[in-house]
């Protein structure tokens, strides 16, 4: 009851922040539309909708980090968190209460991306459903990044870290709209060491029906998701027990 009440509150806070919501769902769609428009005007295949869609879906998930980070940081920097910390809620109630409302939001965001892609010419197939499932560990990873940032940064800092750094990292280091092999060198090595490229690849393989190639990519994402969730729980619990929440 405690956790579900808190989760419902967080869902309402997120949904009622219309500007964030419109930007989070709308911006990836605009990028998808723009790149498709560019593709329609160039003779070579730069942005195939089949390659582009999982990339933009992963890029869009970076806004989920912004949502989760902002709500926690805003609670922390106001007296509302002080009020919550004097209530009998336990650490797990907070973690689940902040995480659960974001899962359907992430699924909705990925679905909107695929629906727009279908309108732009992506062929409807059962693999789209598989891609949605394959992208969910990435969604959990982004939620964990938000939880971690919200636990250690102020709302303004979260805006900088999740709103600028993470969205750019997700855009450039994920191979969402260009092949990282084309850049090569240190850039490629960094992209390979981070989870964003692997998340996009797993989504692409799922969408293309290359089932055997999904798990090696997904393992990276799941590993990062587990590690970041553990870090976020440690950071939040430490804040809960600190003298200065």
């Amino acid at each position, binding site marked *: 009851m*405690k956790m579900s009440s808190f989760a419902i509150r967080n869902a*309402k*806070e997120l949904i009622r922040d219309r500007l964030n919501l419109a930007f989070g769902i709308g911006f990836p769609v605009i990028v998808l539309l723009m790149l498709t428009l560019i593709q329609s005007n160039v003779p070579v295949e730069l942005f195939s909708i089949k390659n582009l869609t999982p990339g933009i879906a992963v890029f869009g998930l970076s806004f989920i980090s912004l949502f989760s980070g902002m709500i926690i940081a805003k609670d922390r920097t*106001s*007296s509302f968190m002080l*009020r919550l910390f*004097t209530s*009998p*809620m*336990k650490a797990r109630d907070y973690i689940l209460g902040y995480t659960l409302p974001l899962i359907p939001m992430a699924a909705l965001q990925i679905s909107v991306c695929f629906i727009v892609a279908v309108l732009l010419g992506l062929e409807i197939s059962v693999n789209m459903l598989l891609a949605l499932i394959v992208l969910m560990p990435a969604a959990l990873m982004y939620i964990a990044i938000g939880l971690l940032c919200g636990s250690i940064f102020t709302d303004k800092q979260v805006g900088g870290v999740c709103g600028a750094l993470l969205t750019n990292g997700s855009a450039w280091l994920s191979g969402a709209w260009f092949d990282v092999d084309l850049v090569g060198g240190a850039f490629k090595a960094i992209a390979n060491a981070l989870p964003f490229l692997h998340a996009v690849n797993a989504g692409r393989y799922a969408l293309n029906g290359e089932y055997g190639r999904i798990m090696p990519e997904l393992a990276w994402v799941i590993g990062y998701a587990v590690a970041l969730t553990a870090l976020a729980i440690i950071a939040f619990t430490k804040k809960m027990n600190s003298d200065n929440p």
Partner: protein
Amino acid sequence: MLSCLIRPSSGDATLMGNSVVTSPIKVKEIINVSPQETAVAPNLSVRENLELMCGIYGYDSKTAREKTGKTIKDFSLSEIEKSRARILSGGWQRRLSIAMAIITEPEILFLDEPTLGLDVLARRELWRIIEKMKEKITIVLTTHYLEEAEALADRIAIMSRGKLVAVGTAEELKTLANAGNFEDAFVALCGGETTYENE
């Protein structure tokens, strides 16, 4: 420390028999706090804020609705119950913040500077509410307004430089400091080196 936000570096304190060190969750179940800054969920309505407090203290939804209805009536919040908290005036937000602390029926309520920044009318209205609440529950109220302490408190503890310098009723403290009014008593007690106690 008594509201379990800070762990004592040594020693312990018990609230209604529950230790803040070994049973903080039990302590948190019987207390509530209204922080100095208004602490409300900005995008929730007044009703939703109150129901949220019931939910995070473990009440089922039926009980939460009943308690919310009663609190809205007791705190005269009917006209704003559907308004989002962030658009309310400072006075209404403060009233909601205190209502959120009282809805869980705590045995001990901590009010931190409840009337700070309120106009005279809003302050008097809150005093009326606090007077009514203290008939049923123990209230620990911190304030810098001496007339507020004198008007509301049955026992007053004066702290100076982080140390408790005197405890007693307003009359007892005036007698102790040999002062004609409470403000003079406060100044005298804070200015002295000696720790006074009056049971």
